């Protein structure tokens, strides 16, 4: 039936759409196979025959451009691109980035002093995190890798909550809410303290608990998105991962499942140039992570991850597509200014000049500050006061967390199963 209709039409369509300068067969007997290959094998994408033996070289495919709105100094490339954020929203974005950055400094130092066992900073990736988080709805579910503390800060996960998790003390909320219900009768002050620092989670903030194995959260995110689609609840899932994690088999599985099962999901890759010591040149040979997107049938965009406004716009647009069950992958190009973690000395494998260059010439926080200053909403004095206030708040939460006792030891046996 389809075949009868197609006949000549498919050839006409092919000539219009085939990009690689194919020479089309004009033989009538080819129409059956061309139709089958297009419909059945290539998911309704039209394909042609060619008699030219031409092995496609990756360089022949152009790289995906990096979407940006402002330049390195934070000035609009084109004034009409100003999203016209209102003042309160803009200041909230800025304060979140500053809070993340200042908290990183204090917790990093506290690990150096042996007060917490481990920490990972977000230096250089503040705009990538806050910009994308701000474009989501609060009920959208987030699966993170581990360098996404900014998303939690944006969602209102408090400083004490962060500190308590890092200390693994009895007030650690990354599991407390549910536990309280179970043990009210026993009147015991139970909580968690089971995972390493920075492995946050919060049901209230729709933020799935982080786990250390890389990329495992990616197929989880697809499964949750599928459940949301079935529940028809207008929620999307956002899953964050790094350029290194994208090499895991689970990333491949997740991309493929999301596209074949049409899930409301946004994949956000933080491409910061390194996976611990491994540079991206040893991680992949193609056009980054975004270059993989079309191969899976994913909607794809590459974004300047240090441009908060670009991250916001891209995520907002991606959410519109995702909510229609068209999965999207965003590759945010950024740079890991800090060490991989407190267990890593990055000077062993990269130059101090390189780091300094990104710190001085291309800092996401300074870049967005330009926006505020240009609007007349911010000045040096206000910036100084904000820094002082933010540091005070962090140190207050920090010293409180340090004083709280650890959970009681029998906690170790709880929650292995629902009922023991």
């Amino acid at each position, binding site marked *: 039936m389809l075949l009868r209709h197609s006949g000549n039409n498919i050839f006409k369509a092919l000539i219009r759409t085939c990009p690689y300068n194919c020479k089309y067969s004009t033989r009538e007997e080819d129409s059956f196979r061309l139709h089958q290959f297009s419909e059945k094998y290539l998911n309704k994408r039209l394909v042609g025959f060619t008699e030219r033996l031409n092995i496609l070289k990756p360089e022949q495919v152009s790289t995906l451009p990096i979407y940006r709105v402002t330049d390195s100094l934070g000035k609009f490339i084109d004034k009409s691109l100003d999203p016209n954020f209102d003042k309160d929203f803009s200041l909230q974005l800025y304060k979140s980035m500053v809070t993340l950055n200042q908290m990183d400094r204090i917790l990093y130092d506290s690990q150096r002093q042996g007060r917490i066992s481990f920490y990972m900073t977000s230096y250089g990736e503040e705009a990538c995190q806050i910009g994308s988080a701000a474009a989501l709805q609060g009920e959208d579910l987030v699966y993170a890798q581990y360098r996404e503390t900014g998303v939690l800060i944006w969602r209102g996960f408090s400083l004490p909550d962060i500190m308590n998790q890092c200390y693994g003390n009895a007030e650690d909320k*990354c599991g407390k809410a549910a536990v309280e219900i179970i043990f009210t009768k026993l009147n015991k002050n139970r909580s968690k303290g089971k995972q390493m620092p920075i492995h946050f989670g919060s049901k209230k903030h729709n933020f799935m608990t982080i786990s250390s194995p890389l990329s495992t959260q990616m197929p989880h995110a697809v*499964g949750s998105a599928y459940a949301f689609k079935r529940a028809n609840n207008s929620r999307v899932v956002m899953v964050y991962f790094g350029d290194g994690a994208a090499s895991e088999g689970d990333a491949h599985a997740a991309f493929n499942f999301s596209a074949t099962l049409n899930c409301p999901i946004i994949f956000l890759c933080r491409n910061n140039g390194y996976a611990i010591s491994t540079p991206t040149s040893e991680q992949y040979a193609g056009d980054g992570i975004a270059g993989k997107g079309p191969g899976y049938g994913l909607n794809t965009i590459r974004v300047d991850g240090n441009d908060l406004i670009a991250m916001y716009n891209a995520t907002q647009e991606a959410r519109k597509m995702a909510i229609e069950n068209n999965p999207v992958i965003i590759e945010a190009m950024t740079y890991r200014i800090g060490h991989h973690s407190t267990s890593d000395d990055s000077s062993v494998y990269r130059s101090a000049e390189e780091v300094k260059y990104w710190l001085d010439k291309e800092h996401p926080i300074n870049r967005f500050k330009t926006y505020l200053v240009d609007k007349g909403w911010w000045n040096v004095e206000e910036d100084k006061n904000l820094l002082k206030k933010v540091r005070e708040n962090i140190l207050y939460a920090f010293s409180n967390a340090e004083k709280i006792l650890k959970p009681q030891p029998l906690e170790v046996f709880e929650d292995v199963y629902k009922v023991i």
Partner: protein
Amino acid sequence: MNLCQAVNNAMDIALKTDPTACVFGEDVAFGGVFRCSVGLQEKYGKDRVFNTPLSEQGIAGFGIGLAAVGATAIAEIQFADYIFPAFDQIVNEAAKFRYRSASMFDCGKLTIRTTWGAVGHGGLYHSQSPEAYFAHTPGLKVVIPRGPIQAKGLLLSCIRDENPCIFFEPKVLYRTATEEVPVGDYMVELSKADIVKYGKNITLVGWGTQLHVLLDAAEIAEKDHGISCEVIDLRTILPWDVDTIATSVIKTGRLLVSHEAPLSSGFASEIAAVIQERCFLNLEAPIARVCGWDTPFPHIFEPFYLPSKWRVLEAILKTIKY
């Protein structure tokens, strides 16, 4: 119903009674390569019974994600031999999901079904019994039925249990085992062993297909040698029913554990160690383990590899004469 139909019936009931339940895996849409999901897609729709791409880690991970937001996920891994690509998802993720968040999040509504055990000619990768790998993982439940009635009740229990479960289906029994299976909705309790035959001289413990081998050996032992065997189907490998086994061994004084999987670090080792600890004063002979050899599962040598009723009988006689 045969075992295959019993599994189908259990999934039918699960889909009917729980609108969030989904069945998915490789080739499940047309009914599955073993026909366990026949008719379910027609009945419940393409969004509830569907094929996934060919990726076991993806299937397990996807199922965890469904369950993590409260949907019931019934995932199929085509053969237990191919569950290893999903090992990380099962062991590091599914099993620890609840613990690491102190019950704030869990994937308890996940059940992974997979075909299991020898089938006559399965060779290395269509015959394995990997339960012991998972028995070393706190947070999981591992369940194996011996026949259709058990399969339906245990599978419904797994699907409705609030912990991630792996349900191994002995594929050689899919069509060979037929029983009068109740058509209604019923469950069989997990972590509870089943005394299939009472006896007084020796306790025989097994699960899945091997239970039938034990029953055959017990019959010969009784008829030809006058040995009364108590035969127990463990049913749940993790967390297992220590009390039922220990109570039996306290009575009989002797224990034989048998499984198809290789001997070294097989689940029989765990049972033997725990029972030795619990029943030291009651044991009158060393605990016998009759298992597969410590080799990969061979193709043409399958009859020599399997712990047959003759090997079991020999071990019974040796244990009794000790």
